[in-house]
């Protein structure tokens, strides 16, 4: 019955519409911040839920809005546990260096678990038209990807931590000599990790994106994505790296033979400003690239989703946001966030005939509600809609 309805209706693009206003978010954000301080942080869980509810509830798609259902108490519980563990780690690592190493290893081993849990929590508590999303990725697959790509940099980092504990107990050795050797060793390790990151990122990111979005469900309907490391390299790594390399090159100008010329003031200004600007631009390009890359390729039940963003426009929004936030000592933050969200949501759409085809998966919902939807260790995995 429903398929014939769909055949008759034509597919069209439905774009998001953002209804949030800066003035509204200001009030919510002010009340959130002040209540959080006044309650010594306890209210932060409620503040987080309210913020998500605001951004979801102001996002309209085809006449209906999104919603977030997370229970603040679960978030609070998770945060308290996280803070206690963080405190133990920070304090313990000052007492005994081994604690630092054990802590790093523990975090490393827990990363995939925390990631999967927070995805399940966030998506399982997100709904649209009374149908819940869900994340059904397996722990096994998450661990597989993580161990495959992150083990090498971890070992390098551990070597670095280990090296820093070669202490100068023997005072007869000149301290500067040890520092030099240690410094060279650390820089060497950093370079190794950097080069590895450059090459492995494309593979890692492509795997993560595929894993994440191929396991997202809207009710019974599945999202899908297909990406390859080559595409990641071309669309994300290359443009960002170019900017970072240019930043390095322009930074070196300062140390070149031109540095002794009379135009030194201008040169210094250029040589400090240009690299900073380029690095910033590289970072923005990276986050833009990652977001855009995923959203250009996701399909829901075979229907295409698209985000029509232009990097130039996005960059201008980002840089004006950053500058005004810093100059206003943070007070412009709510305005900046609303502005950016608005641009992204208004340019995101899905191509389909109607929403009747989507149904909720009540069996999964029933079984999931108890466990995955109520536990989170909230470490800010903001990979949102």
């Amino acid at each position: 019955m429903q398929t014939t309805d769909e055949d008759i209706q034509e597919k069209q693009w439905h774009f998001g519409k953002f209804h949030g206003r800066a003035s509204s978010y200001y009030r919510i954000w002010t009340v959130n911040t002040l209540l959080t301080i006044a309650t010594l942080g306890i209210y932060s869980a409620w503040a987080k839920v309210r913020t998500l509810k605001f951004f979801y509830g102001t996002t309209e798609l085809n006449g209906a809005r999104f919603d977030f259902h997370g229970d603040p108490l679960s978030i609070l519980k998770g945060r308290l546990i996280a803070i206690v563990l963080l405190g133990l780690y920070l304090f313990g690592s000052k007492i005994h260096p081994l604690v630092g190493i054990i802590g790093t290893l523990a975090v490393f081993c827990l990363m995939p678990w925390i990631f999967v849990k927070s995805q399940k929590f966030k998506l399982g508590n997100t709904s649209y038209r009374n149908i819940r999303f869900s994340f059904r990725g397996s722990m096994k697959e998450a661990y597989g990807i993580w161990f495959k790509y992150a083990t090498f940099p971890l070992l390098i980092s551990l070597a670095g931590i280990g090296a820093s504990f070669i202490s100068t107990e023997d005072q007869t050795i000149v301290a500067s000599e040890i520092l030099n050797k240690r410094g060279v060793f650390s820089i060497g390790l950093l370079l190794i990790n950097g080069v590895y990151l450059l090459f492995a990122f494309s593979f890692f990111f492509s795997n993560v994106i595929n894993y994440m979005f191929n396991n997202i469900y809207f009710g019974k309907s599945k999202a899908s994505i297909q990406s390859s490391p080559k595409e990641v390299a071309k669309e994300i790594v290359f443009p960002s790296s170019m900017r970072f390399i240019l930043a390095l090159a322009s930074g070196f100008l300062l140390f070149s033979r031109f540095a002794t010329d009379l135009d030194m003031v201008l040169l210094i200004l250029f040589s400090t400003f240009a690299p900073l600007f380029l690095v910033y631009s590289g970072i923005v390009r990276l986050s833009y690239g990652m977001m855009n890359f995923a959203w250009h390729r996701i399909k829901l039940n075979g229907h295409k989703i698209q985000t029509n963003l232009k990097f130039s426009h996005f960059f201008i929004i980002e840089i004006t946001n950053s500058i005004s936030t810093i100059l206003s000592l943070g007070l412009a933050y709510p305005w900046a966030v609303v502005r950016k969200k608005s641009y992204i949501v208004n340019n995101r759409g899905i191509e389909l005939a109607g929403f009747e085809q989507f149904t909720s998966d009540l069996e999964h919902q029933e079984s999931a509600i108890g466990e995955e939807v109520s536990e989170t260790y909230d470490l800010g995995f903001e990979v949102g809609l």
Partner: protein
Amino acid sequence: MREFPAQYFDKESAQGRPVSLSIKDDQLHIKSELFQKSYLLSECKVQEPLLDTPLIVELPDKIRLECLYDEELLNLLNSHKRFAHLSIFQFESKMKYFIVGTSTLLFLSYLVLYFVIPAASETIADYVPKSYAEKIDHLILKNLDRHFLNESKLSEKRKQEYRKHLKNLGIESYRIAFRSSEKIKGNAFALSGSTIILTDELVKELKNDSLITAIVFHEIAHLEKRHVMEQIIRDSFLTALAIVVVGDASAGTEMFTELSFVLLSRNFMREKEIEADLYAANLLRKKSIPVSCIVESLRKLQEISTKSSDSFFSTHPEFKERIDQIQKTFSITEKCV
């Protein structure tokens, strides 16, 4: 009786149905082209409203209603509840409430930052056992030695000479650590347990043992009053609070919190320094050392600090103010020998 438009979503399909709502006799009536339903108001769960978002009503059997926000509708739906008007939404949506609420919260936050947290830190600091403090000192000193301090270049004779001077005054329970430093010129530090750090430059500039002792007594004041431990605890509170607040507000508020930290610290430091000065002057008097010694030490330290370019963010308050406070409280008769 007014009717309100809404969208009706059942538990299974994503298709929403346009319906109209009306409230009568403590019941919510839903009317659409295809059906009519009624629910008791007590069965309807009204979500706390939020600016710019629709009004959401959750009904039994997982049914969801999305309505255009309307104050009358909200009041009708909540008519059977008593404290609905005390919601956070009221504070966000009505300017009057918002101003009163925000001002109250600002005041509470001010109290928390300037009174509650410092008072709590002070109390907790008193309960920290000395052995813990000693362990922390050990770590702090190790860290300082790694980055800021070098081995003292004073002769062993000079060091022992001064230590004996202190012992003769009956001061035995503190550890004097001599260090030299290019970064931190003539200065002295108290840690959190019983360690006091003296720099070579300070010892050389002051020369006179009584002058040095005046400074040492000032540092002893910090130790006895547990100022450093208090500061460590207070900073931990503020950092934890900042993580929680910034964790949600993120981005630009980072700079705001950093700045507020610095500003808060400067105020606290000023009071503590004056407190330590007065304690030191008192102790000098008890040990029959002229109070003018601390005044003269401060004057000499002022000379040293004006010689080296000091940064704007130094934590030592105006030397003049401190000297004035001492002279106001104590009668200074003898000269320092």
